Protein backbone atom coordinates (compact mmCIF):
# COMPACT_ATOMS: atom_id res chain seq x y z
CA UNK A 1 0.00 0.00 0.00
CA UNK A 2 2.82 2.39 0.77
CA UNK A 3 5.45 2.77 -1.99
CA UNK A 4 9.03 2.30 -0.76
CA UNK A 5 9.95 5.97 -1.25
CA UNK A 6 6.90 7.01 0.79
CA UNK A 7 7.81 4.60 3.60
CA UNK A 8 11.40 5.87 3.58
CA UNK A 9 10.51 9.60 3.69
CA UNK A 10 7.74 8.94 6.23
CA UNK A 11 10.10 7.05 8.52
CA UNK A 12 13.05 9.40 8.06
CA UNK A 13 11.59 12.73 6.95
CA UNK A 14 14.19 15.21 5.74
CA UNK A 15 14.33 18.98 6.40
CA UNK A 16 11.84 18.96 9.28
CA UNK A 17 11.42 22.14 11.31
CA UNK A 18 11.27 25.90 10.89
CA UNK A 19 13.52 28.56 9.31
CA UNK A 20 14.01 31.50 11.62
CA UNK A 21 13.72 34.30 9.07
CA UNK A 22 12.12 32.71 6.01
CA UNK A 23 11.74 34.63 2.76
CA UNK A 24 8.22 33.24 2.41
CA UNK A 25 6.00 30.72 4.13
CA UNK A 26 3.04 28.73 2.85
CA UNK A 27 0.42 26.79 4.71
CA UNK A 28 -2.70 24.74 4.22
CA UNK A 29 -5.17 23.21 6.67
CA UNK A 30 -7.97 20.71 6.36
CA UNK A 31 -11.09 20.70 8.53
CA UNK A 32 -9.97 17.46 10.19
CA UNK A 33 -6.90 19.14 11.78
CA UNK A 34 -4.34 18.10 9.19
CA UNK A 35 -2.05 21.03 8.58
CA UNK A 36 1.21 21.71 6.74
CA UNK A 37 3.47 24.77 6.87
CA UNK A 38 6.47 25.32 4.56
CA UNK A 39 9.30 27.81 5.23
CA UNK A 40 11.43 28.93 2.28
CA UNK A 41 14.75 30.75 2.24
CA UNK A 42 15.17 32.16 -1.26
CA UNK A 43 18.22 33.94 -2.65
CA UNK A 44 18.36 35.23 -6.22
CA UNK A 45 15.21 33.36 -7.12
CA UNK A 46 16.71 30.06 -5.98
CA UNK A 47 15.61 27.95 -2.97
CA UNK A 48 18.62 27.96 -0.60
CA UNK A 49 16.85 26.25 2.27
CA UNK A 50 13.43 24.79 2.93
CA UNK A 51 11.79 23.31 6.01
CA UNK A 52 8.27 22.32 7.03
CA UNK A 53 5.99 21.23 9.81
CA UNK A 54 3.22 18.72 9.22
CA UNK A 55 0.39 17.10 11.15
CA UNK A 56 -0.87 14.53 8.71
CA UNK A 57 -0.90 10.98 7.51
CA UNK A 58 2.09 9.01 6.17
CA UNK A 59 1.56 10.20 2.58
CA UNK A 60 1.25 13.85 3.65
CA UNK A 61 4.44 13.61 5.72
CA UNK A 62 6.37 11.81 2.98
CA UNK A 63 5.28 14.32 0.32
CA UNK A 64 6.51 17.23 2.47
CA UNK A 65 9.87 15.53 2.74
CA UNK A 66 10.05 14.63 -0.98
CA UNK A 67 9.03 18.16 -2.04
CA UNK A 68 11.60 19.74 0.29
CA UNK A 69 14.38 17.65 -1.25
CA UNK A 70 13.10 18.34 -4.77
CA UNK A 71 12.92 22.08 -4.24
CA UNK A 72 16.39 22.66 -2.84
CA UNK A 73 18.58 24.52 -5.33
CA UNK A 74 15.75 24.93 -7.83
CA UNK A 75 14.49 28.18 -9.29
CA UNK A 76 11.23 29.30 -7.71
CA UNK A 77 9.70 29.94 -11.13
CA UNK A 78 10.11 26.28 -11.96
CA UNK A 79 8.51 25.23 -8.68
CA UNK A 80 5.37 27.24 -9.38
CA UNK A 81 4.48 24.72 -12.08
CA UNK A 82 4.43 21.72 -9.77
CA UNK A 83 1.19 19.75 -9.93
CA UNK A 84 -0.07 16.54 -8.40
CA UNK A 85 1.12 14.73 -11.55
CA UNK A 86 4.66 16.03 -10.97
CA UNK A 87 4.86 13.69 -8.00
CA UNK A 88 4.22 10.71 -10.24
CA UNK A 89 7.93 10.70 -11.07
CA UNK A 90 8.45 9.57 -7.46
CA UNK A 91 5.57 7.14 -6.88
CA UNK A 92 2.22 6.05 -8.24
CA UNK A 93 -0.45 8.22 -6.63
CA UNK A 94 -3.27 6.22 -5.03
CA UNK A 95 -6.60 7.89 -5.74
CA UNK A 96 -7.77 7.58 -2.13
CA UNK A 97 -4.68 9.45 -0.93
CA UNK A 98 -4.94 12.41 -3.30
CA UNK A 99 -6.52 14.60 -0.65
CA UNK A 100 -3.73 13.88 1.85
CA UNK A 101 -1.04 14.47 -0.78
CA UNK A 102 -2.75 17.71 -1.84
CA UNK A 103 -2.52 19.00 1.74
CA UNK A 104 1.26 19.08 1.51
CA UNK A 105 1.32 20.19 -2.11
CA UNK A 106 -1.06 23.09 -1.51
CA UNK A 107 0.97 24.30 1.48
CA UNK A 108 4.11 24.12 -0.68
CA UNK A 109 2.50 25.98 -3.59
CA UNK A 110 1.05 28.58 -1.20
CA UNK A 111 4.65 29.42 -0.32
CA UNK A 112 6.17 29.48 -3.80
CA UNK A 113 3.35 31.58 -5.26
CA UNK A 114 4.45 34.48 -3.03
CA UNK A 115 8.15 34.09 -3.72
Amino acid sequence: MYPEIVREHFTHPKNVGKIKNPTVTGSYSMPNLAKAIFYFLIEGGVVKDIKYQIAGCPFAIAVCSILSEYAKGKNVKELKNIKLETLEQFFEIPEEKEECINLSLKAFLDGVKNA
Partner: protein
Amino acid sequence: MRVYLDNAASTKMDKRVIDAMIPFFLEKYAVPSSQFTHTYGLEVKDAVDEARASFVERIGGKHPEEIIFTSGGTEANNLAVKGVAYANMDKGKHLITTQVEHNSVLNSFRRLEEEGFEVSYLPVNENGIVDMDVLTRCIKKETALISVQYGNHETGTVQDIREIAKLSKEKGILFHTDAAIAWPYLPIDAYNWGIDLITLSPHKFYGPKGIGILFVKKGTKIKKVLDGGFNEFNLRPGTENTPAIIGAKKAAEIFSKEDVDRILLLKKRLIRGIETTIKHVEYNGSKEHSLPHIANLTFKYIEGEAISLRLDFEGIAVITGSACYSKNLQASYILLAMGKNHEQAHGSIRFSLSKYNTEEEIDYTIQKTGEVVSDLRKLSPLGREDEE
Protein backbone atom coordinates in the same frame (compact mmCIF):
# COMPACT_ATOMS: atom_id res chain seq x y z
CA MET B 1 8.74 -8.01 19.22
CA ARG B 2 5.41 -8.53 17.45
CA VAL B 3 2.31 -7.40 19.35
CA TYR B 4 -1.17 -7.96 17.94
CA LEU B 5 -3.58 -5.43 19.44
CA ASP B 6 -6.33 -5.61 16.83
CA ASN B 7 -8.32 -8.36 18.50
CA ALA B 8 -11.59 -6.46 18.10
CA ALA B 9 -11.15 -7.15 14.38
CA SER B 10 -10.43 -10.84 14.88
CA THR B 11 -8.62 -13.12 17.31
CA LYS B 12 -6.09 -15.92 16.97
CA MET B 13 -7.92 -19.25 17.12
CA ASP B 14 -7.29 -21.43 20.13
CA LYS B 15 -5.52 -24.64 19.10
CA ARG B 16 -8.15 -26.67 20.95
CA VAL B 17 -10.81 -25.14 18.71
CA ILE B 18 -8.94 -26.23 15.60
CA ASP B 19 -8.50 -29.74 17.01
CA ALA B 20 -12.25 -29.95 17.63
CA MET B 21 -12.99 -28.85 14.07
CA ILE B 22 -10.65 -31.20 12.19
CA PRO B 23 -12.84 -34.36 12.37
CA PHE B 24 -15.64 -32.35 10.77
CA PHE B 25 -13.46 -31.78 7.71
CA LEU B 26 -12.03 -35.28 7.42
CA GLU B 27 -14.56 -37.73 8.90
CA LYS B 28 -17.86 -36.09 9.76
CA TYR B 29 -18.24 -34.08 6.58
CA ALA B 30 -21.82 -35.00 5.70
CA VAL B 31 -24.49 -32.32 6.00
CA PRO B 32 -26.73 -32.48 9.08
CA SER B 33 -29.89 -32.30 6.97
CA SER B 34 -29.01 -35.76 5.58
CA GLN B 35 -30.06 -37.25 8.92
CA PHE B 36 -32.97 -39.14 7.41
CA THR B 37 -30.97 -40.79 4.66
CA HIS B 38 -27.71 -41.90 6.24
CA THR B 39 -25.76 -42.34 9.45
CA TYR B 40 -23.05 -39.94 8.28
CA GLY B 41 -25.60 -37.12 8.33
CA LEU B 42 -27.09 -38.19 11.63
CA GLU B 43 -23.71 -38.04 13.37
CA VAL B 44 -23.21 -34.49 12.23
CA LYS B 45 -26.78 -33.53 13.09
CA ASP B 46 -26.19 -34.74 16.65
CA ALA B 47 -23.03 -32.68 16.95
CA VAL B 48 -24.73 -29.56 15.60
CA ASP B 49 -27.65 -30.09 17.98
CA GLU B 50 -25.20 -30.32 20.87
CA ALA B 51 -23.67 -27.01 19.76
CA ARG B 52 -27.12 -25.41 19.68
CA ALA B 53 -27.91 -26.70 23.17
CA SER B 54 -24.56 -25.47 24.43
CA PHE B 55 -25.10 -21.91 23.15
CA VAL B 56 -28.69 -21.76 24.39
CA GLU B 57 -27.51 -22.65 27.87
CA ARG B 58 -24.65 -20.14 27.84
CA ILE B 59 -26.76 -17.14 26.85
CA GLY B 60 -29.85 -17.91 28.91
CA GLY B 61 -32.12 -19.22 26.18
CA LYS B 62 -34.50 -22.13 26.65
CA HIS B 63 -34.83 -24.04 23.38
CA PRO B 64 -32.05 -25.30 21.09
CA GLU B 65 -34.01 -24.16 18.03
CA GLU B 66 -33.54 -20.58 19.25
CA ILE B 67 -29.96 -20.74 17.91
CA ILE B 68 -29.60 -19.95 14.20
CA PHE B 69 -26.18 -20.43 12.65
CA THR B 70 -25.25 -17.93 9.94
CA SER B 71 -22.12 -17.05 7.96
CA GLY B 72 -21.05 -14.42 10.48
CA GLY B 73 -22.11 -11.54 12.69
CA THR B 74 -22.93 -9.40 9.67
CA GLU B 75 -25.44 -11.91 8.33
CA ALA B 76 -26.90 -12.45 11.81
CA ASN B 77 -27.44 -8.70 12.17
CA ASN B 78 -29.01 -8.48 8.70
CA LEU B 79 -31.37 -11.34 9.55
CA ALA B 80 -32.32 -9.86 12.92
CA VAL B 81 -33.00 -6.33 11.69
CA LYS B 82 -34.56 -7.00 8.29
CA GLY B 83 -36.21 -10.29 9.29
CA VAL B 84 -38.02 -8.71 12.23
CA ALA B 85 -38.92 -5.55 10.31
CA TYR B 86 -40.45 -7.52 7.40
CA ALA B 87 -42.35 -9.92 9.66
CA ASN B 88 -43.85 -7.26 11.92
CA MET B 89 -45.12 -4.70 9.44
CA ASP B 90 -48.63 -5.35 10.72
CA LYS B 91 -47.53 -3.73 13.99
CA GLY B 92 -45.82 -0.82 12.29
CA LYS B 93 -42.93 0.36 10.18
CA HIS B 94 -41.07 2.38 12.79
CA LEU B 95 -37.72 1.07 14.04
CA ILE B 96 -35.19 2.35 16.57
CA THR B 97 -31.42 1.93 16.67
CA THR B 98 -28.39 4.03 17.64
CA GLN B 99 -25.91 6.13 15.71
CA VAL B 100 -22.99 4.01 16.92
CA GLU B 101 -23.97 0.52 15.74
CA HIS B 102 -21.76 -1.69 13.59
CA ASN B 103 -22.18 -1.04 9.87
CA SER B 104 -24.01 -4.36 9.41
CA VAL B 105 -26.77 -3.03 11.69
CA LEU B 106 -26.72 0.58 10.48
CA ASN B 107 -26.74 -0.31 6.80
CA SER B 108 -29.54 -2.85 7.31
CA PHE B 109 -31.64 -0.05 8.78
CA ARG B 110 -30.66 2.30 5.96
CA ARG B 111 -31.82 -0.31 3.44
CA LEU B 112 -35.14 -0.56 5.27
CA GLU B 113 -35.48 3.24 5.14
CA GLU B 114 -35.10 3.05 1.36
CA GLU B 115 -37.93 0.53 1.39
CA GLY B 116 -40.29 2.84 3.26
CA PHE B 117 -39.57 2.11 6.93
CA GLU B 118 -39.03 4.97 9.36
CA VAL B 119 -35.90 4.65 11.50
CA SER B 120 -34.90 6.68 14.58
CA TYR B 121 -31.13 6.72 15.11
CA LEU B 122 -30.57 7.47 18.79
CA PRO B 123 -27.78 9.87 19.69
CA VAL B 124 -25.26 8.99 22.42
CA ASN B 125 -23.58 11.10 25.08
CA GLU B 126 -19.87 12.00 25.20
CA ASN B 127 -19.10 8.53 26.57
CA GLY B 128 -21.05 6.81 23.82
CA ILE B 129 -24.01 5.83 25.99
CA VAL B 130 -27.67 5.97 24.96
CA ASP B 131 -29.94 8.18 27.08
CA MET B 132 -32.95 6.17 28.30
CA ASP B 133 -35.16 9.27 28.30
CA VAL B 134 -34.38 9.95 24.66
CA LEU B 135 -35.10 6.32 23.82
CA THR B 136 -38.41 6.45 25.69
CA ARG B 137 -39.43 9.60 23.79
CA CYS B 138 -38.63 7.96 20.44
CA ILE B 139 -40.99 5.04 20.99
CA LYS B 140 -44.25 5.14 19.02
CA LYS B 141 -47.13 2.73 18.90
CA GLU B 142 -45.88 1.66 15.45
CA THR B 143 -42.38 0.82 16.74
CA ALA B 144 -41.69 -2.81 15.84
CA LEU B 145 -38.02 -3.19 16.82
CA ILE B 146 -35.36 -1.64 19.03
CA SER B 147 -31.79 -2.67 18.23
CA VAL B 148 -28.99 -1.48 20.52
CA GLN B 149 -25.50 -2.97 20.65
CA TYR B 150 -24.20 -4.49 23.88
CA GLY B 151 -20.67 -3.15 23.53
CA ASN B 152 -19.10 -0.85 20.97
CA HIS B 153 -16.45 -2.36 18.71
CA GLU B 154 -14.47 0.85 18.42
CA THR B 155 -14.55 2.43 21.88
CA GLY B 156 -15.54 -0.53 24.04
CA THR B 157 -18.40 1.43 25.61
CA VAL B 158 -21.09 -0.84 27.06
CA GLN B 159 -24.81 -0.01 26.89
CA ASP B 160 -27.27 -0.82 29.66
CA ILE B 161 -29.06 -3.44 27.61
CA ARG B 162 -30.90 -4.81 30.66
CA GLU B 163 -32.69 -1.49 31.10
CA ILE B 164 -33.34 -1.19 27.38
CA ALA B 165 -34.69 -4.75 27.24
CA LYS B 166 -36.93 -4.00 30.21
CA LEU B 167 -38.30 -0.88 28.56
CA SER B 168 -38.83 -2.74 25.27
CA LYS B 169 -40.77 -5.45 27.08
CA GLU B 170 -42.93 -2.92 28.91
CA LYS B 171 -43.77 -1.28 25.61
CA GLY B 172 -44.33 -4.58 23.79
CA ILE B 173 -41.50 -3.99 21.31
CA LEU B 174 -39.04 -6.63 20.13
CA PHE B 175 -35.46 -6.01 21.28
CA HIS B 176 -32.30 -7.06 19.43
CA THR B 177 -28.78 -6.60 20.72
CA ASP B 178 -25.63 -6.96 18.67
CA ALA B 179 -23.36 -8.68 21.20
CA ALA B 180 -20.76 -9.62 18.57
CA ILE B 181 -17.88 -7.87 20.33
CA ALA B 182 -19.23 -8.07 23.88
CA TRP B 183 -20.11 -11.72 24.48
CA PRO B 184 -18.69 -13.79 26.18
CA TYR B 185 -16.41 -11.05 27.60
CA LEU B 186 -19.59 -9.87 29.34
CA PRO B 187 -22.43 -12.21 30.35
CA ILE B 188 -25.86 -12.18 28.79
CA ASP B 189 -29.09 -13.77 29.99
CA ALA B 190 -31.70 -13.73 27.22
CA TYR B 191 -34.87 -14.80 29.02
CA ASN B 192 -34.16 -13.21 32.39
CA TRP B 193 -33.15 -9.90 30.83
CA GLY B 194 -35.99 -9.97 28.27
CA ILE B 195 -33.93 -9.97 25.07
CA ASP B 196 -35.60 -11.32 21.92
CA LEU B 197 -32.65 -11.47 19.52
CA ILE B 198 -28.89 -11.62 20.12
CA THR B 199 -26.03 -11.59 17.61
CA LEU B 200 -22.83 -13.47 18.47
CA SER B 201 -19.55 -13.72 16.57
CA PRO B 202 -17.21 -16.60 17.50
CA HIS B 203 -14.08 -15.28 15.74
CA LYS B 204 -14.04 -12.48 18.30
CA PHE B 205 -13.42 -15.03 21.06
CA TYR B 206 -10.75 -17.36 19.60
CA GLY B 207 -13.21 -19.26 17.42
CA PRO B 208 -13.33 -19.62 13.64
CA LYS B 209 -14.32 -17.03 11.04
CA GLY B 210 -17.26 -17.76 8.74
CA ILE B 211 -19.71 -18.48 11.53
CA GLY B 212 -22.19 -16.21 13.29
CA ILE B 213 -25.03 -16.92 15.63
CA LEU B 214 -28.42 -15.31 15.94
CA PHE B 215 -30.48 -16.15 19.01
CA VAL B 216 -34.15 -15.79 18.19
CA LYS B 217 -36.43 -16.22 21.18
CA LYS B 218 -39.13 -18.82 20.54
CA GLY B 219 -42.29 -17.18 19.23
CA THR B 220 -40.51 -14.12 17.79
CA LYS B 221 -42.01 -13.15 14.44
CA ILE B 222 -39.14 -13.12 11.94
CA LYS B 223 -38.89 -13.68 8.19
CA LYS B 224 -35.94 -15.24 6.40
CA VAL B 225 -33.96 -12.80 4.26
CA LEU B 226 -32.01 -15.25 2.09
CA ASP B 227 -33.91 -17.54 -0.25
CA GLY B 228 -32.96 -21.20 -0.50
CA GLY B 229 -33.70 -24.41 1.35
CA PHE B 230 -35.23 -25.06 4.72
CA ASN B 231 -32.08 -25.18 6.87
CA GLU B 232 -31.88 -23.62 10.32
CA PHE B 233 -35.60 -23.99 11.02
CA ASN B 234 -36.40 -22.36 7.70
CA LEU B 235 -34.73 -19.10 8.78
CA ARG B 236 -31.31 -19.39 7.16
CA PRO B 237 -30.86 -21.46 4.01
CA GLY B 238 -27.52 -22.84 2.86
CA THR B 239 -25.32 -25.75 3.83
CA GLU B 240 -24.40 -25.53 7.48
CA ASN B 241 -20.72 -24.71 8.12
CA THR B 242 -20.41 -27.66 10.47
CA PRO B 243 -16.66 -27.47 11.25
CA ALA B 244 -17.14 -23.80 12.21
CA ILE B 245 -20.26 -24.58 14.27
CA ILE B 246 -18.28 -27.17 16.23
CA GLY B 247 -15.35 -24.74 16.54
CA ALA B 248 -17.67 -22.01 17.81
CA LYS B 249 -19.05 -24.37 20.45
CA LYS B 250 -15.54 -25.31 21.57
CA ALA B 251 -14.45 -21.66 21.70
CA ALA B 252 -17.41 -20.80 23.94
CA GLU B 253 -16.77 -23.83 26.15
CA ILE B 254 -13.14 -23.00 26.86
CA PHE B 255 -13.61 -19.24 27.16
CA SER B 256 -12.39 -18.40 30.62
CA LYS B 257 -13.35 -15.70 33.10
CA GLU B 258 -9.77 -15.80 34.42
CA ASP B 259 -8.53 -14.80 30.98
CA VAL B 260 -10.97 -11.88 30.96
CA ASP B 261 -9.74 -10.74 34.38
CA ARG B 262 -6.15 -10.88 33.15
CA ILE B 263 -7.00 -9.00 29.94
CA LEU B 264 -8.68 -6.28 31.98
CA LEU B 265 -5.53 -5.90 34.10
CA LEU B 266 -3.44 -5.63 30.93
CA LYS B 267 -5.81 -3.01 29.53
CA LYS B 268 -5.57 -0.97 32.73
CA ARG B 269 -1.78 -1.31 32.63
CA LEU B 270 -1.77 -0.05 29.03
CA ILE B 271 -4.02 2.94 29.74
CA ARG B 272 -2.16 3.88 32.91
CA GLY B 273 1.20 3.49 31.18
CA ILE B 274 0.19 5.69 28.27
CA GLU B 275 -1.59 8.32 30.35
CA THR B 276 1.34 8.68 32.76
CA THR B 277 4.10 8.81 30.15
CA ILE B 278 2.51 10.66 27.22
CA LYS B 279 1.06 14.17 27.39
CA HIS B 280 -2.13 15.33 25.67
CA VAL B 281 -3.92 11.99 25.53
CA GLU B 282 -7.70 11.68 25.70
CA TYR B 283 -9.61 8.50 26.52
CA ASN B 284 -12.55 7.98 24.17
CA GLY B 285 -15.62 6.35 25.71
CA SER B 286 -16.63 5.33 29.19
CA LYS B 287 -13.92 3.98 31.48
CA GLU B 288 -16.57 2.74 33.87
CA HIS B 289 -18.89 1.02 31.39
CA SER B 290 -16.35 -0.58 29.13
CA LEU B 291 -15.49 -3.90 27.53
CA PRO B 292 -12.45 -5.46 29.20
CA HIS B 293 -10.46 -5.74 25.98
CA ILE B 294 -10.90 -2.45 24.11
CA ALA B 295 -9.34 0.97 24.77
CA ASN B 296 -9.58 3.93 22.41
CA LEU B 297 -7.25 6.88 22.90
CA THR B 298 -6.68 10.13 21.04
CA PHE B 299 -3.13 11.43 20.77
CA LYS B 300 -3.61 15.12 20.16
CA TYR B 301 -1.85 17.15 17.45
CA ILE B 302 -0.96 14.16 15.25
CA GLU B 303 -2.72 11.83 12.83
CA GLY B 304 -3.78 8.26 13.55
CA GLU B 305 -2.65 6.54 10.36
CA ALA B 306 0.84 7.95 10.89
CA ILE B 307 0.81 6.59 14.45
CA SER B 308 -0.49 3.17 13.42
CA LEU B 309 2.00 2.81 10.53
CA ARG B 310 4.94 3.78 12.75
CA LEU B 311 3.70 1.31 15.38
CA ASP B 312 3.44 -1.31 12.64
CA PHE B 313 7.12 -0.71 11.83
CA GLU B 314 7.76 -1.55 15.49
CA GLY B 315 5.70 -4.77 15.16
CA ILE B 316 2.57 -3.44 16.89
CA ALA B 317 -0.83 -3.83 15.19
CA VAL B 318 -3.55 -1.28 16.02
CA ILE B 319 -6.15 0.68 14.03
CA THR B 320 -7.21 4.33 13.88
CA GLY B 321 -10.48 6.23 13.48
CA SER B 322 -8.74 8.83 11.31
CA ALA B 323 -10.38 9.87 8.04
CA CYS B 324 -7.10 9.35 6.17
CA TYR B 325 -7.17 5.67 7.05
CA SER B 326 -10.79 4.94 6.20
CA LYS B 327 -11.81 3.87 2.72
CA ASN B 328 -14.52 6.55 2.51
CA LEU B 329 -12.19 9.28 3.87
CA GLN B 330 -14.66 9.92 6.68
CA ALA B 331 -13.53 10.13 10.29
CA SER B 332 -14.99 7.53 12.65
CA TYR B 333 -18.77 8.03 12.74
CA ILE B 334 -18.74 6.57 16.23
CA LEU B 335 -16.39 9.18 17.67
CA LEU B 336 -18.23 11.95 15.82
CA ALA B 337 -21.57 10.68 17.24
CA MET B 338 -20.02 10.98 20.71
CA GLY B 339 -19.51 14.68 20.04
CA LYS B 340 -15.79 14.35 19.38
CA ASN B 341 -14.56 16.78 16.75
CA HIS B 342 -12.69 15.79 13.61
CA GLU B 343 -9.44 16.69 15.32
CA GLN B 344 -10.09 14.20 18.13
CA ALA B 345 -11.08 11.46 15.69
CA HIS B 346 -8.02 12.27 13.59
CA GLY B 347 -5.53 11.14 16.22
CA SER B 348 -7.52 8.22 17.66
CA ILE B 349 -6.07 4.74 18.10
CA ARG B 350 -7.92 1.57 19.12
CA PHE B 351 -5.98 -0.95 21.15
CA SER B 352 -7.84 -4.28 21.49
CA LEU B 353 -6.37 -7.07 23.57
CA SER B 354 -6.61 -10.85 23.81
CA LYS B 355 -5.69 -13.65 26.19
CA TYR B 356 -2.48 -14.11 24.21
CA ASN B 357 -1.07 -10.68 25.12
CA THR B 358 1.53 -10.44 27.88
CA GLU B 359 2.70 -7.77 30.31
CA GLU B 360 5.95 -7.54 28.33
CA GLU B 361 4.00 -6.82 25.17
CA ILE B 362 1.97 -4.13 26.89
CA ASP B 363 5.07 -2.48 28.34
CA TYR B 364 6.75 -2.60 24.92
CA THR B 365 3.62 -1.01 23.39
CA ILE B 366 3.61 1.79 25.98
CA GLN B 367 7.28 2.51 25.29
CA LYS B 368 7.00 2.42 21.50
CA THR B 369 3.78 4.46 21.49
CA GLY B 370 5.60 7.10 23.53
CA GLU B 371 8.49 7.19 21.06
CA VAL B 372 6.26 7.29 17.99
CA VAL B 373 3.98 10.00 19.39
CA SER B 374 7.00 12.07 20.41
CA ASP B 375 8.59 11.69 16.95
CA LEU B 376 5.41 12.66 15.12
CA ARG B 377 4.77 15.61 17.40
CA LYS B 378 8.25 16.94 16.53
CA LEU B 379 6.97 17.21 12.95
CA SER B 380 3.65 18.77 13.90
CA PRO B 381 2.96 22.51 13.85
CA LEU B 382 0.09 21.97 16.31
CA GLY B 383 0.06 22.15 20.09
CA ARG B 384 3.62 23.38 20.40
CA GLU B 385 2.79 26.50 22.40
CA ASP B 386 3.49 24.84 25.75
CA GLU B 387 6.72 23.29 24.54
CA GLU B 388 8.42 26.39 23.24
